């Protein structure tokens, strides 16, 4: 059936049919999509409580904009941006904020994270909201503004703040927007259903993204295992072909929906290593994101819900549900009548890259596109790993053309330098290598381990640098304390000597002279006076002044050393003032390292 459809399409589109390319490797796991495609998208009900993690996106966690006890309306901002790479969070339904505390979240680590808890009132009362007056002719900057206001993030799973992706630096010209409709992971059908039911929203959203980036063309890549959605999209884009919008059917090979692979398939362009698609004039957004952009711009609706596929053989009513963020996943599973007795594995995401859910209280967040409640033997439990027989199937299947088997040897040996030689940071962790490995070696696990070890080593190095710096300053403080002590001792001695001298001369000298001798004086003159006044103590005083010189020299050395690192004003006139300055500098430097750390994190998030 799909073949005849394709032929028809070819005739319809005529000269518009586009040449597609291929990427290296890939695998063909069973699709298992039909079970969740049996009915339309259903609305999830409002749970009694919504749990909204502050970090549902890549980058800095949002900062709460409400406090416990506040009444909130549906769509009201409850957490605001924190830094340039962050996303807003809105109340998915009306109710009262009852807590802001650490709670379980859907994350492979099974750790808890800061969440805003809203007790819903069941009224589902919207806050006043409004879309752009003339969305067809909206200005580019305004689109970005709406997207940022709506807290939209990449809904394909990466959850990168979309507004940041729309804000491309002027030196990078974007020629193509790629809309990712591939949905290559088995089981998942939320994008498929979205396209079938809301193709118009997807296309209008894609057009907005294209406009915001001033891109000439907009390619929508969809795998050929979704002929229905493809047909609907074709119809929906019929009027936009002159705007450069084109739906392209691509072969269903996992991971064709990987950003880098999809770009390669559609354009034959490779994203440079450690670069971004923007480096080659391309930006990729998911269909779900496009629909969210449409809702934000046309209706002013923030991102408060998403479509999630609830599937697996332990679910009685598998399908796609539009559910509010913050809904506990257990609540969602109950609504599809899953059988807890039968569940053997519970996965978030697809079977190729998803992870096990450990806590049913964890809420639905922006990145969750699928839950699979699998019965025994529905998913595979790999037998114990055998030794690698170097068959090379991993390298054949790697969509990045890496050599997983070599990376495995060096990861296992913890030879981190060598692992990087084999470009481990180009690994997208798609799982193809583990999938084909006849020895059942958990290769992806090894690569995650190696990556985290390398990151760990790097942060250890940074910590060591910081510790060394601290140690240096501690040494300076020691020297300084010694100098201060010596100076104080000298002062005391001088005063004592003077007192003695004064006492000796007391009878001979007048009261006025004595008062003059008590006047505060600089150390050096005091020492001199001491030298001249009392020769018996000359040994000690000499040593103290001799001690002062190496101290000064040490201070000088340290300063020179610091001056090499960065220029700074020299102040040697007054010793105590200089000390003060140094302390300030230490503080400033610390603050700066913290700041640069932050920047680095943001950069990382950007990557």
């Amino acid at each position, binding site marked *: 059936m799909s073949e005849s459809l394709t032929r028809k399409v070819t005739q319809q589109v005529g000269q518009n049919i586009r040449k597609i390319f291929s990427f290296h490797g890939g695998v063909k796991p069973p699709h298992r999509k039909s079970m969740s495609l049996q009915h339309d998208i259903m609305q999830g009900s409002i749970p009694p409580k919504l749990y909204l993690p502050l970090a549902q996106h890549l980058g800095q966690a949002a900062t709460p904009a409400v406090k416990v006890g506040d009444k909130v309306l549906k769509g009201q901002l409850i957490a605001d941006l924190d830094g340039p790479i962050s996303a807003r969070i809105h109340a998915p339904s009306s109710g009262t904020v009852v807590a802001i505390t650490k709670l379980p979240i859907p994350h492979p680590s099974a750790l808890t994270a800061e969440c805003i808890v809203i007790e819903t009132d069941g009224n589902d009362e919207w806050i006043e909201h409004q879309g752009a007056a003339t969305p067809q002719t909206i200005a580019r900057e305004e689109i970005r503004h709406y997207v940022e206001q709506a807290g939209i993030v990449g809904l394909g799973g990466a959850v990168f703040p979309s507004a940041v992706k729309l804000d491309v630096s002027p030196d990078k010209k974007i020629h193509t927007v790629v809309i990712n409709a591939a949905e290559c992971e088995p089981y998942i059908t939320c994008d498929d259903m979205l396209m079938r039911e809301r193709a118009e929203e997807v296309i209008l959203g894609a057009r907005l993204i294209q406009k915001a980036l001033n891109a000439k063309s907009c390619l929508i890549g969809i795998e050929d295992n979704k002929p229905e959605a493809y047909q609907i999209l074709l119809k929906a884009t019929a009027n936009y072909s002159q705007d450069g919008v084109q739906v392209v059917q691509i072969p269903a090979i996992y991971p064709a929906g990987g950003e*880098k692979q999809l770009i390669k398939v559609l354009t034959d362009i490779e994203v440079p290593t450690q670069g971004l698609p923007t480096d080659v004039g391309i930006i990729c957004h998911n269909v779900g994101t496009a629909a969210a952009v449409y809702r934000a711009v046309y209706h002013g609706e923030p991102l408060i819900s998403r479509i999630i596929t609830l599937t697996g053989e332990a679910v009685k009513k598998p399908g796609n549900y539009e559910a509010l963020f913050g809904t506990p996943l257990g609540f969602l599973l109950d609504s599809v009548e899953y059988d807890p007795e039968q569940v053997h594995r519970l996965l978030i995401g697809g079977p190729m890259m998803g992870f*096990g859910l450990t806590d049913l209280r964890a809420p639905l967040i922006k990145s969750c596109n699928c839950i699979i409640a699998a019965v025994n033997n529905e998913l595979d439990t790999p037998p114990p790993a055998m030794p690698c027989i170097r068959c090379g199937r991993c390298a054949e299947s790697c969509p990045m053309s890496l050599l997983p088997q070599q990376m495995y040897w060096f990861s296992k040996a913890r030879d981190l330098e060598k692992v990087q030689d084999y*470009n481990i940071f180009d690994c997208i962790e798609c799982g193809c290598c583990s999938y084909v490995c006849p020895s059942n070696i958990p290769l992806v696990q090894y690569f995650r381990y190696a990556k985290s070890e390398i990151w760990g080593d790097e942060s250890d190095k940074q910590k060591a640098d910081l510790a060394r710096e601290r140690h240096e300053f501690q040494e300076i403080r020691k020297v300084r304390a010694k100098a201060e002590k010596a100076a104080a001792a000298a002062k005391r001695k001088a005063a004592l000597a003077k007192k003695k001298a004064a006492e000796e001369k007391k009878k001979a000298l007048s009261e006025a002279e004595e008062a003059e001798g008590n006047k505060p004086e600089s150390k050096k003159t005091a020492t001199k006076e001491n030298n001249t006044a009392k020769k018996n103590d000359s040994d000690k005083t000499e040593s103290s002044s001799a001690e002062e010189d190496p101290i000064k020299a040490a201070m000088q050395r340290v300063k020179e050393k610091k001056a090499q690192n960065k220029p700074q004003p020299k102040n040697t006139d007054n010793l105590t003032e200089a000390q003060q300055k140094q302390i300030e500098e230490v503080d400033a430097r610390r603050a700066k390292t913290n700041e640069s750390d932050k920047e680095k994190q943001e950069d990382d998030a950007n990557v």
Partner: protein
Amino acid sequence: MPMFNIQSSPHFKPALTVSQIMQGVLLALLPGIMVMFWLFGWGVLINLILCITLALIFEAASLKLRNRPIEPYLKDYSAVLTAALLALALPPLAPFWLLAIGIFFAIIIAKQLYGGLGYNPFNPAMVAYAILIISFPTEMTTYWQSPSVLHEQLNTQSLGLLASLQFQLFGQLPEGLTFDSLTAATPLDTVKTLLGSGSSTISEIKAQGITFGVLAGKGVEWVNLAFLAGGLWMIYKRYINWHIPVSMLATLFFMSLVFGYVVDSDSHVSPMFQLFSGATMLGAFFIATDPITAATTIKGRLIFGAGIGFFIYVIRAWGGYPDAIAFAVLIMNMVVPLLDYYTQPRVYGHSKNEQSQGEQLKDEQV
């Protein structure tokens, strides 16, 4: 709170395992084994059974000594495959002790002492073969049962099951039979001896009508065809890749084409003879493709196969041994790490002549 099975992604696994690949390869040997049985009699099967039994015993013993789990490693069929390959390479009348020494070297020395499955740099069956042919050249070359297709011409015969067992285990021949009435030199051996001594040219050997068959060596050509069929089936089933056999056979073909036809066709055998004599097809599809000891990259595999083809021709034409699969494979095993290192594919997003990240880092540090 229910507890679920937590595992790392991916959560799908196709059925193909190491054990199944090895079993597939063993299955692909069957046509060749059957042809060999038809040609050389019971000795072929006795060799196979003895070698496999000994290999399993040695494997289990060394796993036990190394404190490794025995069952999963025996079930991976790698020892069985090694034993089968060695058994098929040995003469069908090989004495029991020859097999035992061969299997000892293959399993204990070449495989387990290096760390077992996956860690051996040299093909275990070929290590054993090389040691045997160097240590026991007489047994290795003269204990070849005369193929059944030559029985009439040479006035020879095959041994029955019991007689075969008796000869291989105890070295006793049935009464009235002489060793010469059982054996015949292999075609490669005959050609080498006759050409080497300068007593005959190719056309003279052909005229005798004993050595040359339709394609190549009489009798052996059918064995090679059967192994070729098994090999093609393995490629179709994706147990092996085409790269090594194709590049090996192509190199052997072109070398023999250049030297055998273009240079001098009367003192060199034809390309077809090279391809379908000796253990060429067994070597190309079953021995050189052993993944553990072969190169892993595509380019590396092509070079690896070509190298084997090259050395096979060099040794067959100018070396001291009639066949050369073992030495050619072992020589190329040695360069595998180098091949793997210098033939890395270009990674997605990297330019063609780019240094790897690690090298860049090192440069920066310098």
